């Protein structure tokens, strides 16, 4: 979605006068109040302490950040990044050929196939996750089929496993990888691929040296839409992993409700935001390097 900033219109037209500013004021104030101020508040909170009742004490300290680097939380953070990275890689491997295939089709079929991606894209991830619970639960469909056909005698515990979490994440985020890659693949000029062939590049070399760099903007956008949200996604890990595989999103959520330690939760939120910015910068740098 970072492409949006690039396509922003040049701010042309007349210079804004007092009236134009007054008209824009609600929007500017809204962004200030509900985007800028909350982010500043998050940072302030992350340096605060809490008292025994869970109330926030405005007392500057680095303690919350020191706690983030506690081995327990580092492990959870590492695991969250690992799961998100695995999900992203699987989504690219599964989704890239699909996006490529759809982009190569002629017009009516292409739009229809694209529509088939749009439907899961817009269907609530919660409902799509629930669909998998119905399949994987011990009294669910898959176990029923396995027992009915005599493959197993006792139900397997398929849900509440790391595999279930990854299935849930991949299932939820796959359309978010296919669509941006499709966007890039559709714009790709076939003549460039043919030129690579004519110059003697085999299919693999053409793919790695021509196609991948040219569709990188789509891949980068896909990474932003899959990797970052997957790190913080606590709902899917809650539903598919039970309490077995806590990820960073579950810990953050806990700090604000059960553990009542908002400052520590805020510190984790800030760390997560920094990770998000880092990913964004990396995806962008590679992109600039390839388009240059």
């Amino acid at each position: 979605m970072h492409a949006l900033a690039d396509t922003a219109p040049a701010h042309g037209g007349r210079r804004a006068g007092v009236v134009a500013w007054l008209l824009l004021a609600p929007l500017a104030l809204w962004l200030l109040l509900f985007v800028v101020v909350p982010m500043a508040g998050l940072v302030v909170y992350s340096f605060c302490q809490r008292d025994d009742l869970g109330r926030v004490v405005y007392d500057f300290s680095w303690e919350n950040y020191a706690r983030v680097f506690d081995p327990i939380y580092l492990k959870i953070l590492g695991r969250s990044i690992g799961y998100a990275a695995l999900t992203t890689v699987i989504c690219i491997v599964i989704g890239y050929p699909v996006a490529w295939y759809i982009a190569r089709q002629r017009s009516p079929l292409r739009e229809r196939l694209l529509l088939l991606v749009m439907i899961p894209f817009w269907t609530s991830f919660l409902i799509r996750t629930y669909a998998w619970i119905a399949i994987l639960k011990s009294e669910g469909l898959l176990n029923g089929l396995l027992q009915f056909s005599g493959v197993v005698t006792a139900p397997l515990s398929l849900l509440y496993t790391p595999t279930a979490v990854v299935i849930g994440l991949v299932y939820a985020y796959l359309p978010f990888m296919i669509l941006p890659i499709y966007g890039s693949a559709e714009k790709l000029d076939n003549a460039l691929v043919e030129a690579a062939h004519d110059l003697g590049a085999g299919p693999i070399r053409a793919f790695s040296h021509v196609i991948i760099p040219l569709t990188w903007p789509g891949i980068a956008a896909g990474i932003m839409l899959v990797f970052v949200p997957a790190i913080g996604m606590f709902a899917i890990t809650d539903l598919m992993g039970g309490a077995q595989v806590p990820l960073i999103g579950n810990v953050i959520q806990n700090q604000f409700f059960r553990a009542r330690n908002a400052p520590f939760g805020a510190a984790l939120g800030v760390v997560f935001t920094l990770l998000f910015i880092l990913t964004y910068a990396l995806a962008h740098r590679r992109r600039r390097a390839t388009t240059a």
Partner: protein
Amino acid sequence: MRPPPLLPSFWDRWSGLRLLDAGLGIWTGLVFLFLYLPILVLVVYSFNDSRLNVVWEGFTLDWYGRLWDNTRIARALKNSLVVAGFTTVLSVVLGTVGAWLLHRYRYRFGSTLQTLIAVPMIMPEIVMGISLLILFTTAGLKLGFFTVIVAHTTFCFPFVLIAVQARLQGMDPALEEAALDLGATPVRAFFLVVVPYLRPAILSGALMAFTLSLDELIVTFFTASAQVATLPLLVFGMAKVGLNPMLNALSALFIVATVAFVLFSEHLRRLGRRAP
């Protein structure tokens, strides 16, 4: 990949690229199967006359009937519609007026503002949720309809704004100038000339805002109280407990609504492309 000499006439047509293409087609089909089979199972089993999901025990509409009678679900649906309704109206006003002003006038800090508008769209939802929760608790606001609607509008209106902005780029400036030359005030020109031209974009932006709000779980999770629990919050709670045939029925209805939404947006998009 070279055609074997024994079957030249047949294998010529199946050069390496064609084989690759067929393979890609099969792969795409399998991925669609992976994407749709679970949803399909859910819909089919919402008509199953059994508490458990495993065995098919006959067709029933019972779960849909119970859904209708369930007061908790009815209230959550009402909450969701109230939130999504207000969010859509606010988003359309903020987004349309904002896009028009940014298109029409040159502002100092205009590009900063443009970047700031994109932030809620790409910011991780959980970070947005906790930062707004901190704001609301620090300001002493009680969580309720107001806080949820504010939170939803914050991430929904940029989608309207971007949609409208995209359409504005194709607009002939002469359109508005003609209205002004003919003596219309800028406000009249905006409502009588600009808004009708922008209608497809406004409508698809509104649809997007409505759907995004209706589906939102994470941000709502942090900014809603139990009294204003929306449908996704209720579904999340129910799904944590386990399987529930009523949830199958509810999900099936949601899926049908989503399909209708996607088809309608596609229709709007085509309409928008065809219009001058």
